[in-house]
């Protein structure tokens, strides 16, 4: 067996390079390069064949985005290219990871005055119009991601060639916006099905190259090795550009039909994003209903609507949430985690799904449980996860990486071991001690506990410096947050590696200090408790939940308690009762009886609500806004978040806001509980808390941290 020496690793890299197709930047036979210009973010060249290649390569970043500077430079470059009078222009990205991910979102935070926004956006539209008006064929070559402004740039070209790995989309709606650089009227004008184009913009989802071709957004799909051939055909007018809109699409342009479909879109959107909190999708639907038949008025209406959206509070808050997400991801940057093999102990709902997620992300995972029969359901759920919504059949590579391991052979080899057995102290201590004895001395040991103190868990371990909490949320596939729980003995490099791994597996890491409930359960507990107390006083659970949902929570606290499981909720409350200073009230007796009677919520078909087919059976209630009830229900959550920041459970306010948003779904359009408090006014919050304390009890006493809040 040959061992790897220096020349062997060169050979290895060279073999690997063979498998990657290099990017095409010229046509064969293009002759000598006559022009070759470089700028900060663009470069372009032209050979004797007079075909100009314009490459987007934004400096100092790994991903292309269209910042204001990039667009300004684009304008200058276009002038030069026009002067050179090529017979065709090919536009592509020089970066391997994709075409362009959209506009530069940091430009958005300064866009707070509508008139300024209109001016800036109009200028951008003019640049793209110039591109569209060039007197020679313009051909965009798209590989990787092509999103938002990047897609708008591509749509301004006459022809689009997509590589088979291209993914196109309009994610603006996720930021409370919609396309603003002509994306609406260009995509609607091209699309074989305007409703599909609208759906793309309303959902923010990406589509693959073949789908984009069916939609007419791209003209041909090829692998990299045939890009040159396709470009040549585009220039020679050999491409089959059947862009006639089918009868159905033309019919859709009539105003009454649009109005009818728009009404359907509105009701579909209401279910996911209520209008009062998320104006952007409705603004987009309005644009289409009013101007869908008239490209000229749609143009100006788009700019107007975009300016209105971006200067509104929802968009600014969602942009803040975008940066909060980046902040969490940044916790994981800067270290390479070097973790290839993870061993998971416990194949239950959490352990099995964590293992499946890791395998989906490309790691080698060994999954252990007491008996192989307990691992079967985990594999079944994993297969469903791998197949995805579209029922992808080719899931073998992922299934191969998820190895059922009842004997625990993987323990001795894993880089990271995650314990996910039931929430019992003695059991966990036993499992952790056994694992530590068998695993590599340089491997990391983690626990998925949600309520046990790390100190109680690691007191028997020999290498507590390599032990930490790795708290995933249920369901693992949908919840992006992972609390990375630290303690005093934890070694810093271990923490850094684990944060890096969490980011690498497409989750958002949040470092939290070991304390009961960490961050998320800690703030959810008073939220759920207060709801139970209100219910105890006679407020209907449907009303309680409606008030919370109206505030912007994805689910009301009563339904949440039933979903989490009343036994789990009871456990969490009990384990938190002992905290000094957390004046949690007692649980009502009837609640404890419910648990004792086995009425645990969704999983038993009955809890605080009756449950049928996985959904709660709720009576219809007439919803009336009730600010005092809303504050009574929501301010405990806000107040406790402040407590967590003051006690250093999380490092600062932004981290707390990020954790609460991504761990509970807390109204993202409000920018987080502490941001909401600031916007409303800290004094107003404190006053209100005091009022509630006078009325309901000292549990509402405003946290000392409010006074220290820097303006």
């Amino acid at each position, binding site marked *: *067996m040959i061992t790897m020496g220096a020349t062997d690793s060169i050979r290895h890299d060279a073999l690997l390079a063979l498998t990657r197709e290099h990017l095409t930047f010229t046509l064969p036979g293009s002759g000598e390069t006559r022009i070759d210009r470089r700028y900060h973010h663009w470069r372009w060249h032209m050979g004797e064949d007079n075909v100009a290649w314009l490459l987007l390569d934004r400096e100092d970043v790994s991903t292309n985005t269209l910042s204001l500077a990039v667009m300004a430079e684009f304008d200058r470059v276009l002038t030069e290219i026009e002067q050179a009078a090529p017979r065709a222009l090919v536009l592509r990205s020089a970066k391997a990871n994709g075409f362009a991910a959209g506009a530069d979102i940091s430009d958005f935070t300064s866009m707070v005055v509508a008139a300024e926004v209109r001016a800036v956006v109009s200028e951008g539209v003019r640049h793209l119009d110039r591109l569209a008006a060039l007197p020679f064929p313009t051909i965009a070559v798209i590989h990787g991601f092509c999103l938002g402004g990047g897609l708008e740039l591509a749509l301004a070209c006459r022809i689009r060639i997509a590589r088979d790995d291209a993914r196109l989309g309009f994610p603006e709606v996720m930021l409370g916006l919609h396309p603003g650089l002509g994306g609406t009227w260009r995509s609607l004008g091209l699309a074989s099905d305007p409703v599909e184009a609208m759906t793309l913009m309303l959902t923010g989802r990406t589509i693959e190259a073949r789908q984009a071709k069916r939609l007419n957004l791209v003209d041909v799909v090829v692998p990299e090795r045939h890009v040159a051939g396709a470009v040549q055909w585009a220039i020679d007018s050999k491409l089959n550009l059947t862009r006639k809109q089918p009868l159905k699409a033309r019919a859709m342009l009539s105003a009454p039909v649009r109005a009818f479909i728009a009404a359907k879109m509105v009701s579909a959107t209401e279910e996911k994003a209520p209008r009062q909190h998320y104006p952007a999708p409705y603004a987009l639907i309005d644009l289409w209903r009013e101007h869908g038949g008239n490209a000229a008025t749609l143009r100006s209406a788009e700019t107007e609507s975009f300016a209105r959206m971006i200067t509104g509070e929802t968009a600014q808050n969602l942009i803040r949430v975008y940066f909060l997400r980046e902040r969490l991801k940044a916790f994981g940057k800067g270290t390479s985690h070097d973790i290839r093999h993870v061993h998971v102990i416990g194949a239950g709902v959490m352990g099995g799904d964590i293992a499946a997620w890791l395998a989906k992300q490309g790691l080698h995972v060994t999954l252990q449980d007491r008996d192989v029969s307990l691992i079967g359901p985990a594999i*079944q759920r994993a297969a469903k996860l791998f197949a995805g919504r579209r029922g992808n059949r080719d899931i073998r590579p992922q299934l191969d990486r998820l190895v059922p391991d009842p004997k625990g052979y993987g323990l001795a080899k894993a880089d990271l071991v995650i314990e996910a057995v039931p929430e019992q102290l003695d059991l966990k201590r036993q499992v952790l001690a056994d694992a530590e004895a068998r695993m590599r001395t340089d491997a990391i040991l983690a626990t998925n506990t949600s309520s046990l103190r790390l100190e109680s868990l690691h007191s028997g371990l020999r290498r507590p410096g390599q032990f930490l909490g790795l708290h995933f949320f249920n369901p693992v596939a949908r919840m992006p947050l992972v609390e990375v729980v630290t303690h005093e003995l934890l070694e810093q490099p271990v923490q850094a590696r684990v944060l890096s791994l969490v980011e690498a597996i497409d989750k958002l890491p949040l470092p939290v200090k070991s304390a009961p409930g960490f961050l998320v359960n800690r703030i959810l507990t008073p939220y759920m408790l207060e709801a139970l107390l209100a219910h105890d006083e006679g407020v209907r659970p449907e009303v309680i939940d409606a008030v919370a949902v109206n505030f912007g929570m994805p689910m009301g606290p009563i339904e949440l308690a039933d979903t989490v499981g009343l036994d789990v909720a009871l456990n969490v409350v009990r384990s938190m009762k002992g905290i000094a200073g957390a004046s949690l009230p007692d649980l009502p007796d009837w609640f404890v009886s419910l648990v004792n009677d086995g009425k645990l919520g969704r999983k038993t078909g009955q809890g605080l609500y009756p449950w049928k087919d996985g959904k709660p059976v709720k009576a219809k209630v007439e919803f009336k806004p009730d600010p005092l009830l809303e504050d009574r229900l929501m301010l405990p959550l806000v107040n406790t978040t402040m407590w967590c920041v003051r006690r250093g459970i999380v490092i600062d306010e932004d981290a707390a806001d990020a954790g609460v948003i991504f761990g509970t779904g807390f109204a993202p359009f409000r920018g987080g509980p502490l941001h909401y408090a600031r916007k409303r006014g800290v004094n107003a919050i404190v006053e209100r808390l005091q009022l509630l304390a006078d009325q309901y009890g000292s549990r509402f006493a405003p946290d000392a941290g409010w006074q220290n809040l820097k303006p």
Partner: protein
Amino acid sequence: MHGTRIVSTGPAVYLVDGARTPFLKARTGPGPFTPVDLAVGAGRNLLERQPFPPDAFDEVILGCVNVHPDEVNPGRVAALRLGCGVEVPGWTVQRNCASGMQSIDTAFRYIAAGRADLILAGGAEALSHAPLHYSEDAVRWFGGLNAARGPMAKFRQLARFSPSLFKPSIGILRGLTDPVAKLNMGQTAERLAHQFNISREQADLYALESHKRLAQAQATNLLDDEVIPLIAPDGRVFPQDDGVRPDNTIEQLTALKPVFEKPFGKVTAGNSSQITDGASWTIVASEKAVRQYGLKPLARIVDCTWAALDPSVMGLGPVLSATSLLKAYGLRREDIGVWELNEAFAAQVLACLAAWEDAEFCRTILGLDEPFGAIDQARLNVDGGAISLGHPVGASGNRITLHLAHVMRRFDARFGVATECIGGGMGGAMLLEMVE
């Protein structure tokens, strides 16, 4: 007699470890696993418990008879899916029922010749996936339809349709029929039953014992080190061999009708091996690899030999091959502590035992002065065999060799022989020696 010449062994070659899937009886329709799925299912955990990484192998050799069309050269596909890496060659061998023993033999010879140090040698078969074949006429009809241009030509071709074109022939039945002798495997067993006076009763009693032994082995966890449970993508768990009938009675076996030659035959579905899916792997290593990785071998592979005879009596293959193997090493029957003789059919196993006790047979065919002697049935197929376990054709030779090594340890036997008959008229035999 002819056959491979015995090569005196040079440097030691070891059987280090091995594992197999549960053997799953083919029931209605294709099972959830292809041959490579089975190979990966057993191989993953086997490799997980080794102190070296999967890319340490010099090559991967897999026996397989019914190759699945999506997995051509299953040895290579399995090697890639097991994480051996793109630079470890993988290939496939086929010697019918002994394909899984052939892979070990080839690995043994490569290592003995100094060409390799560590080889993963296995066998896999998914008989439940064996295809239904269209007749040649039907295939030609499809071809004609495909080539037809224009509606008139297509219509004319469609008019030639006849339902009789589409009676499929079952792949397994064809595979189990010898093309030269024109007998299926079961019929060769009937021949031997006649030749060596094996009765229906004897065959049924032998079959009953096979089930009893396997059930006992399962109940006492004797197979835990070898068998890796499988889980299908739909969550179904297969923890152990599922063809065994622990509560089988002699009455139930007696009630069965002969399956190959009605109504007088002695071979039934109950005293034949089962149609089964399964895979097995062994890790074969040189002295150097054993030292380098600190491995603890199960046994030393002394040698392997192949013999050939008329296909119509292929069931006697073990007698010829095992005898010549022992002769070459100056070993007698008494020197062999435990035996694995693949149970293709009860009558066939009993015929082999009878042949070894027959003075004339031993003198004229085996070249022995005295009869070979009676093998102690308490030391033969001690934990059952293909009658209760099943016979996934490409895997069996691998399984019996691996299992032999474990049984040798249990019985403290210095030498052990694994041997099997081969459809087409051959026999293979593997000689193992215990190591400390």
